[in-house]
């Protein structure tokens, strides 16, 4: 039962353009969402998060949008840089139910930013 889904295994974008990575979830009890970036041979690196009481959160070039009615979130990277090339994971948790320590991850999307 895949509660968090990233349906695009890969995405290729030109340097300087916008990258949009998508994530869908099925469990309406999820109330906190996170994005991680992973380079080969390294652990995932925390990027940005959003609570279900918000619909947008920005941090520099990274913006996460949350659409609760559609159970969908997206990560926008503007402008994209070659160093952004990595695998991106979205994750969700049920913090209200004291399960903040249990992150449920999607399968990942491999982003390639071409110079």
């Amino acid at each position, binding site marked *: 039962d895949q509660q968090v889904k990233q349906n695009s295994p890969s995405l290729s974008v030109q340097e300087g353009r916008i990258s949009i990575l998508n994530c869908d979830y099925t469990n309406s009890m999820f109330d906190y969402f996170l994005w991680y970036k992973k380079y080969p041979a390294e*652990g*995932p690196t925390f990027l940005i998060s959003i609570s279900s009481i918000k619909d947008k959160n920005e941090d520099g070039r990274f913006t996460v949008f949350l659409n609760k009615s559609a159970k969908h979130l997206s990560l926008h990277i503007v402008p994209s840089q070659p160093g952004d090339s990595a695998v991106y*994971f979205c994750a969700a948790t049920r913090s209200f139910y004291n399960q903040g320590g249990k*992150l449920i991850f999607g399968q990942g999307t491999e982003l390639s930013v071409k110079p």
Partner: protein
Amino acid sequence: DAGVTQSPTHLIKTRGQHVTLRCSPISGHKSVSWYQQVLGQGPQFIFQYYEKEERGRGNFPDRFSARQFPNYSSELNVNALLLGDSALYLCASSLDWIVYEQYFGPGTRLTVT
């Protein structure tokens, strides 16, 4: 400041053996979580420990166990290894058990032959 550290980096074991993986959290972090990542999948939650107590457990068999020490470091133990246990094992730390941003170590690559 040092990030999350894990040892060993790589490990090769034979079916039926036992393995112990180690993790040291970021200084000041009191919660440690363990995840298993198989190729092509996202990390899957195994355990969370806070103040030496288990706070959460994922859908893994009893062959998997863990503990946390007074200095907040942690061990993950896997008994009676199966070929399917081959994976990257990730440790993550957070300030406490209700802080949702977790910071991951580089992982231990376990190969079971």
